[in-house]
């Protein structure tokens, strides 16, 4: 558990606010408001996983992201193909048992290294060396925890085994997406995040919502794909349902 942080100047600051609002300071917990409008829950309500996947596929075309589909059996081949398409290694992956459960051990631990494609698995005991490896990597591979169909967005939670920079420092990015993680939109992910917090009292220190590769329209409003984050991104949807 982290040390408790400090808070400075709070009372005078908040007293000024309550004075401006012309009422005493609010202290006790205030009940969660009953909102009059809740349009967000209506979007793609009741859509099946297949329908959600279709929605996501359509949107992928707008975000410069290739979407591949495979079952578990075909996963090693598809992953190999996409990584080769990006020019091979070095590859950096998060430390996650699912890679092994999905039958990727042979590819990641034997085949690629034997072809001179280095694979680095995130290892917190090595400290900053992880960041150095991520910076040198050509491809970063991570697994989506929640996937938003509407915007074709993957959601990642950081922890000691899931470094933040795997998704930002490598030149290209591949996200493995179990089809079972699909939800209609951001709304369901937000509800889930609250649930996790209420159940565990914790929130990951970094939650990333990632939608395609990095881009910018800052120069004459021309869209340039690939600015500070990955220059290219691919999604591999795994039919796990």
């Amino acid at each position: 558990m982290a040390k408790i942080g400090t808070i400075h100047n709070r009372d005078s600051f908040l007293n000024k606010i309550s004075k401006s609002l012309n009422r005493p300071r609010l202290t006790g917990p205030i009940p969660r408001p009953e909102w009059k409008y809740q349009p967000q829950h209506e979007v793609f309500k009741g859509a099946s996983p297949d329908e959600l996947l279709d929605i996501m596929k359509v949107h992928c075309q707008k975000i410069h992201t290739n979407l591949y589909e495979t079952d578990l059996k075909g996963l090693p081949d598809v992953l190999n193909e996409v990584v080769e398409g990006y020019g091979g290694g070095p590859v950096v992956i998060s430390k996650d048992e699912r890679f092994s459960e999905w039958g990727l051990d042979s590819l990641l631990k034997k085949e690629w290294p034997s072809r001179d494609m280095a694979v680095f698995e995130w290892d917190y005991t090595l400290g900053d060396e992880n960041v150095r490896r991520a910076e040198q990597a050509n491809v970063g591979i991570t697994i989506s925890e929640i996937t938003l169909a509407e915007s074709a967005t993957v959601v990642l939670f950081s922890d000691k085994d899931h470094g933040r920079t795997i998704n930002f420092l490598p030149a290209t990015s591949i996200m493995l997406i179990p089809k079972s993680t699909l939800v209609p939109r951001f709304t369901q992910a937000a509800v889930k995040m609250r649930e996790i917090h209420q159940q565990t009292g914790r929130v990951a220190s970094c939650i990333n919502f990632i939608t395609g590769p990095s881009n910018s329209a800052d120069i004459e409003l021309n869209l340039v794909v690939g600015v500070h984050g990955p220059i290219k991104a691919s999604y591999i949807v795994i039919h796990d349902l």
Partner: protein
Amino acid sequence: MAMKISTEKFNDRVEQGIHDSFMRGAVAGAQDGMGVKRRVVTTDELSNWEDWRNHAEEIRQHVLANLDYYLEQLSENIAQRGGHVFFAQTKEEANEYIRGVVQRKKAKKIVKSKSMVTEEISLNAMLEEEGCEVVETDLGEYILQLDDHDPPSHIVVPALHKNKEQIRDVFAQKIGYTKTSTPEELAYHARVTLREKFLEADLGITGCNFAVAETGSFCLVTNEGNADLVTALPKTQITVMGMERLVPTFEEMEVLVSMLTRSAVGQKLTSYITVLTGPREELDVDGPEEFHLVIVDNGRSDILGTEFQSILQCIRCGACINVCPVYRHIGGHSYGSIYPGPVGAVLSPLLGGYDDFKELPYASTLCGACTEVCPVKIPLHQLLHKHRQVIVEKEGKAPFSEKMLMKAFGLGAASPALYNMGSKMAPVAMNPFTVGDKISKGPGPLKAWTEIREFPAPNKERFRDWFKNREKGGE
């Protein structure tokens, strides 16, 4: 950069603005693209847009009405996670606290992601005084910083007024760039140059799109991924937020982020939405070891409880700027504030005082396009009107006559088109969803615009009518 970006007189700035033909073309292009087309194309799924706006508005109003409570909750939760919170009444207090952190950490190399509030408090000037190298990492901000701190002209696309040849020249002069003016090559060069800066930085500074009271979190909304490197690599992080930028829980954050990305850039979500909570956890490898949140008042509490309170609902999406006919005509720099366009014309006099910004409420046709497009339903044109009333009361007269104003905007009596345009745009702007069909069938946004302009004007008090009325009122 402070809030005020120019010492020239309002009329002179406007004069320069309307003679800058690239700028005007760029602004027009941006408005056509961002103000109309992208909105229609990307928001058509949200058929019940008015419900979304109503919900966003009720969230923002609820937070403002209970602001002290939510700020207290936010600060408690951040401290629980080991983060430090500093409440700064003034920009001086904010800068002093940050100076203290910089000195204690002996920070010399600082990377920043885009933040309006740090501009508002002139943070970079203080950091440079401390001998730090401060690098803006948002591409648009980086371009402006390299060009001897050229001020931003748009709150979402800060370097909108610059063309790619100018950008190439700046890169060539300042960072030894030798390639062409294609945006891809320019951006790639910035990527490589800035990557070094990220890796060697000892302090990262960000703004805050929305803080989340219930969990002590905050989120950053970007497309470039720069904010993620700013918050993942340096060992110390300072985040600066305007005190009103928060929501009760993740669920309201979600709604406002969705409204922001749609209204700002016409995207369902930007490439990166990043939700951060406290410093890194014990065994984490990346993310800051030390986290500070600086919550800034700087005049905001004086707006609370007044007739201008609703401007604090603003989520800085820029949509009002993208549809404003006056902004289109005079460009961002004419406003003389880091906050241009309708939002700036309301906010700048409130935060910066009428002395410096009393002309801004007149840089509007009161056509109402801004109000109709605002995702959190701020009655912008009514607030502008209120400003004018306050100014007239204070000064005993308006700072302008009609003639001066028309002249300032470069308009003869024979060219009233500008002032009609705004009101005639309003039907497009106010309901991008229901008119979606009509527009997407057209050959392009420009055509759509001209078609719309032939529609009868909505029944609103317009600029010229307003002037007429005012004249009748006996001036």
